[in-house]
């Protein structure tokens, strides 16, 4: 009876996390289409990678830990899901910074509704 209660608690908490992650994922996919230029779309990438991938991975780890029908290998699945969540948490931010820095240096994307560019003003160039 006790293990039944613990399993249901883990599963319900995991399902809440997965539902939040699916909502963030759908919102990020809509914003990726609606946003006007590249530098604003970085925000949509961060919603999609942190909210849409890390949170459901942790939720899937909790669901896997609380479901005894998967057999003894469910701890393997939970550990793998946690490692994936950790990797996405580190590499998503690092990759977004790398591609943003390269795009700004190489001027590969123009930003059309431009109001202020303080980095260019600090480097002595003309901003906007």
């Amino acid at each position, binding site marked *: 009876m006790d293990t039944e209660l613990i*399993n*249901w608690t883990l*599963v319900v908490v995991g*399902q809440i996390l*997965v*539902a939040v*992650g*699916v909502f963030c*994922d*759908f919102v*990020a*996919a*809509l914003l*990726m*289409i609606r946003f006007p230029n*590249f530098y604003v*779309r*970085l925000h*949509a*990438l961060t919603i*999609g*990678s942190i909210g*849409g*991938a890390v949170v*459901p*991975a942790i939720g*899937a780890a909790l*669901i*896997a830990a609380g*479901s005894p*029908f*998967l*057999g003894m*290998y*469910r701890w*393997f*699945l939970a550990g*793998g*899901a946690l*490692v*994936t969540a950790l*990797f*996405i948490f580190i*590499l*998503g931010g*690092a*990759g*977004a910074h*790398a*591609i943003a*820095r*390269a*795009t700004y*240096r*190489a*001027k*590969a*994307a*123009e930003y059309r509704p431009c109001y202020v560019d303080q980095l260019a003003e600090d480097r002595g160039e003309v901003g906007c």
Partner: protein
Amino acid sequence: MSFLESWITNFLTITMFFYIASFLLYLVRLFKGPTIPDMILAIDALGYDLAAFLIILSILFKNPVLIPCAIVLTLWIYALDIYVAKYLEAKEMGE
């Protein structure tokens, strides 16, 4: 099939539709993207969300051996990102 198992299976099956819908919306941006960095952003988000989707599918198939695919996919999508960033930056700074 116990009640817990059918509950989890139904919930994750409903979840799959939203994931597929958001994949199709990312693909719109990838095919339409005006510049190279926009396409990189779209394939980045697509890869990370596909990794989370593979974890959910491996619970749904009741086959925990499928989990290392998600870790490997995450690492190589990051590598593609770094390659294109290095290419774009080397054009300005000289190797």
